C-alpha cells in the first residue's frame, strides 16, 4: 500500500493537534466560566436566603407575620431577576415574586444546594430551605429563591460559537503551517529528485549539493552521491569495455575479410588457397579464445559460485606451473624460483590459472639472465602469494587499470601473440571469486603482483562467487591419458 504523502500527513497532524488543544482549552475555559457563574449565583442566593431567614426569625407573632410580604417587597426592589416563594407548613403562600415556577421536588427537598432548571426560553437556578420563624409552636416555613440566569446561558452559547470558530480557524491555520513546514522541510528532497531525474547513462556527473542539505539528509545525500560515483565508474568501465571489445573484434574480422577477398579476386593455386585458410584459422583461434575468456569473465561478474572448494597446496601448484613454463623461460634465459608454501581452500584449476597468468606475464617482461620469483607466505588469516620480476617498470598511471579488460600498458604490443589482454582481468576475477585481494606495484626496476587468499572458507564473503574455470577445466579432466 502506498503511504500518504509526508506533507499531507504533517498538515493533518498539525490540524488535529491544534484542534485538540483548542478544544481542551475551550472546554476548560467554559467549565471555569460555568463554575464561576454557579458560584456567584449560589453566593447571591444564599445571601438573599440569609436575609429573609433573618427577617423571619425576628417575627414573634402572627400579626408581625402579616407585615412580612411588604418587608420582602421592599427588600427585593431592584432585583427583577430574583424570584421568591415563601409558604408555611400548610402550604399557604405568604409571598411570591418573580417569574420562576419552582419545581415541586425543589420545594419538598428544601435542599440547600442550588439547582438549575429550564422554563420555556428561560433558565433558572434556585434553592429552597426550611426557615423557622420566631413564633412559638409554628413549624418552619419553606422559602425558595431563584435567579434568572438566562443571560449566563446566552453568554455560554456565544462562547461556544466563538470557540468553534476559533477551533476551525486555528486548525486550518495549523494545517497550512504544517503544510508549509513540510513543504519547506522537504525541499532538499525535491532537489535530490531533480538530480536523480536527470541521471542517465550519459549524465552521471551531477552530484547533490550537500553543503545546503539539512543534517538529517546529509547521510542520504552522501550515500546517493557515492552511488552515483560507483555507477559512473562502472558505466565508464563498461563503455570503455564495449568499445575495446568492438575494437578487438574488428581487427581479426577485418583481417579475415581482406584476406578472403584478396584471395578470391583471382584464381590461385591450391597452395595459395591453403595458405589463406591457415591464416584464417589463426584468426579464428584468436577470436575463439577471446570469446571463451570473455564468457569466463562474464560468468565471474555474474557471481557464479566457485564450484569445487578443496585445500589447495599452493607450492605444489606453483611447482607444476614452473614445470610447464620452464621451456618458455629457458628460451628467454629466465630462471623461475619458488619460495615458501601455503594451503588455501579453493578451486585448484582456477587458482592455477590465476597464478599461471601472472607467471607467464612475468616471464614475458623479464630480461635475459634474470629470475622470476614466486613467494608464498602462510599468515594467520590468509596465504599471500607474490610474483616478482625485474624488468621495465609499469608507469604509475597504468597501475590502477592494469587489471581492466583489454588494458595494455603498451598499445603497440597489440598484435603480439600474448593474447587479448584479458589474462590479468581473469586473474583478478578468480582471486576475488575466492574472497581474496590482488595488488600490483612497480618500482626500483621491479614489478610485483601480490594476492592473498583467505584460509577460511567463506571468509571473504565471496563464497557465492564466480567463475567457470572448473567447467572449461573439467572438460579436459575426463580425457584420460591413452
Amino acid at each position: 500500500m502506498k503511504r500518504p504523502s509526508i506533507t499531507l500527513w504533517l498538515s493533518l497532524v498539525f490540524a488535529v493537534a491544534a484542534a485538540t488543544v483548542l478544544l481542551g482549552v475551550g472546554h476548560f475555559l467554559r467549565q471555569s466560566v460555568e463554575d464561576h457563574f454557579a458560584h456567584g449565583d449560589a453566593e447571591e442566593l444564599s445571601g438573599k436566603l440569609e436575609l429573609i431567614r433573618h427577617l423571619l426569625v425576628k417575627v414573634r407573632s402572627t400579626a408581625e407575620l402579616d407585615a412580612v410580604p411588604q418587608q420582602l417587597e421592599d427588600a427585593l426592589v431592584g432585583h427583577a431577576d430574583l424570584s421568591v416563594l415563601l409558604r408555611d407548613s400548610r402550604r399557604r403562600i405568604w409571598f411570591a415574586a418573580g417569574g420562576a415556577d419552582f419545581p415541586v421536588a425543589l420545594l419538598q427537598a428544601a435542599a440547600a444546594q442550588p439547582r438549575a432548571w429550564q422554563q420555556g426560553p428561560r433558565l433558572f437556578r434556585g434553592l429552597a430551605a426550611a426557615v423557622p420563624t420566631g413564633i412559638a409552636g409554628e413549624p418552619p416555613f419553606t422559602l425558595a429563591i431563584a435567579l434568572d440566569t438566562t443571560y449566563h446561558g446566552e453568554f455560554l452559547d456565544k462562547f461556544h460559537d466563538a470557540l468553534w470558530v476559533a477551533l476551525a480557524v486555528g486548525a486550518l491555520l495549523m494545517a497550512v503551517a504544517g503544510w508549509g513546514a513540510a513543504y519547506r522541510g522537504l525541499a532538499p528532497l525535491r532537489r535530490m529528485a531533480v538530480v536523480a531525474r536527470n541521471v542517465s547513462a550519459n549524465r552521471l556527473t551531477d552530484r547533490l549539493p550537500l553543503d545546503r542539505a539539512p543534517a538529517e539528509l546529509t547521510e542520504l545525500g552522501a550515500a546517493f552521491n557515492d552511488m552515483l560515483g560507483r555507477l559512473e565508474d562502472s558505466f565508464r568501465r563498461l563503455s570503455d569495455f564495449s568499445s575495446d571489445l568492438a575494437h578487438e573484434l574488428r581487427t581479426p574480422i577485418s583481417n579475415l575479410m581482406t584476406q578472403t577477398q584478396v584471395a578470391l579476386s583471382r584464381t590461385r593455386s591450391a597452395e595459395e588457397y591453403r595458405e589463406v585458410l591457415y591464416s584464417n584459422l589463426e584468426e579464428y583461434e584468436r577470436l575463439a579464445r577471446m570469446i571463451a575468456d570473455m564468457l569466463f569473465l562474464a560468468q565471474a561478474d555474474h557471481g557464479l559460485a566457485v564450484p569445487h572448494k578443496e585445500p589447495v597446496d599452493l607450492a605444489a601448484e606453483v611447482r607444476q606451473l614452473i614445470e610447464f613454463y620452464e621451456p618458455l623461460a629457458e628460451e628467454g634465459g629466465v630462471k623461475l624460483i619458488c619460495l615458501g608454501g601455503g594451503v588455501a581452500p579453493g578451486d585448484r584449476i582456477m587458482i592455477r590459472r590465476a597464478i599461471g597468468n601472472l607467471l607467464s606475464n612475468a616471464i614475458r617482461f623479464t630480461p635475459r639472465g634474470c629470475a622470476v620469483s614466486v613467494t608464498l607466505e602462510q599468515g594467520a588469516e590468509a596465504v599471500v602469494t607474490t610474483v616478482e620480476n625485474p624488468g621495465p617498470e609499469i608507469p604509475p598511471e597504468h597501475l590502477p587499470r592494469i587489471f581492466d579488460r583489454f588494458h595494455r600498458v603498451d598499445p603497440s604490443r597489440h598484435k603480439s601473440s600474448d593474447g587479448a589482454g584479458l589474462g590479468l582481468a581473469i586473474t583478478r576475477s578468480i582471486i576475488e571469486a575466492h574472497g581474496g585481494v590482488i595488488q600490483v606495484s612497480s618500482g626500483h626496476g621491479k614489478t610485483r603482483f601480490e594476492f592473498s587468499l583467505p584460509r577460511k572458507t567463506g571468509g571473504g564473503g565471496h563464497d557465492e562467487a564466480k567463475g567457470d574455470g572448473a567447467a572449461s577445466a573439467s572438460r579436459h579432466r575426463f580425457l584420460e591419458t591413452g
Partner: protein
Amino acid sequence: MKILIVEDEPKTGDYLRQGLSEAGFVTDLVRDGVDGLHQALHESYDLIVLDVMLPSLDGWRVLQSIRGAGKEMPILFLTARDGVNDRVKGLESGADDYLVKPFAFSELLARVRTLLRRGARTHEPDTLRVADLEVDLRRRRVMRGGRRIDLTAKEFALLELLTRRRGEVLPRSLIASQVWDMNFDSDSNVVEVAIRRLRAKVDDDFEPRLIRTVRGMGYVLEAEDAPR
C-alpha cells in the same frame, strides 16, 4: 567405426560429417532430436556426437532416452554455453564428454578418438616404435637410429603422448592438459616451445622428420611424410 551426428545447425552438421568422414569414420547425420533418438536406438553406433539445443526433442532428453534404453556407446555432447549447470546436467544424464562451441575440429577429433579408445583399451607393448624411433615405456628410455636420446621427464611424457597417438593430430590444449595437467587455455606458446625443444633432440639430426606441425591444428607424430 560408425558415428552418429545429431546437429540441427546446417553448416556445423555438414562440416562435422565431412570432417569425421575424411578422418576415416562412417558417419550418419540427423538434424533433430526425434530422428536422432530413433537412429540411436535402431542402428548400431560406436559413438554419438549430440548437440544440446535441438528442435523437437532436446539433447538432454535424447541422452536420457538412449541411456534409458540400455545403450552404452560413448556420447560427446556439444553445447553453446559454457555453464557449470550444462556440464553437470550433461554428465549426470550420462554423457561421456562435452565440448563448448566454438571448438576446434582437431579438438573434437582428438576427443572422439579418446572416447573410442576408452572402450577398447588394448594392451600396449612396452616399447613403441615409429620408423627408427623406439620409446621404451617401462625403462623410460628413448632410442633413435640406435642412439640413446636423453630427455627430461616432461619431454618424455610429451613424446610418449605423441607416440601413443601417432598419426593423430593433437591440439595444443590437449597436449597441455595431458602432459602438464594445465586444464585451461594458456595464452602463451609454451607447447610450441616444448615441441621445438623435443624436436631438436629427437628429430633434428635424423631422417625422416617424425614430429610435424599441422598449422592451426596441432602436432602429429608419424613416419610417412604425407601432406594433409
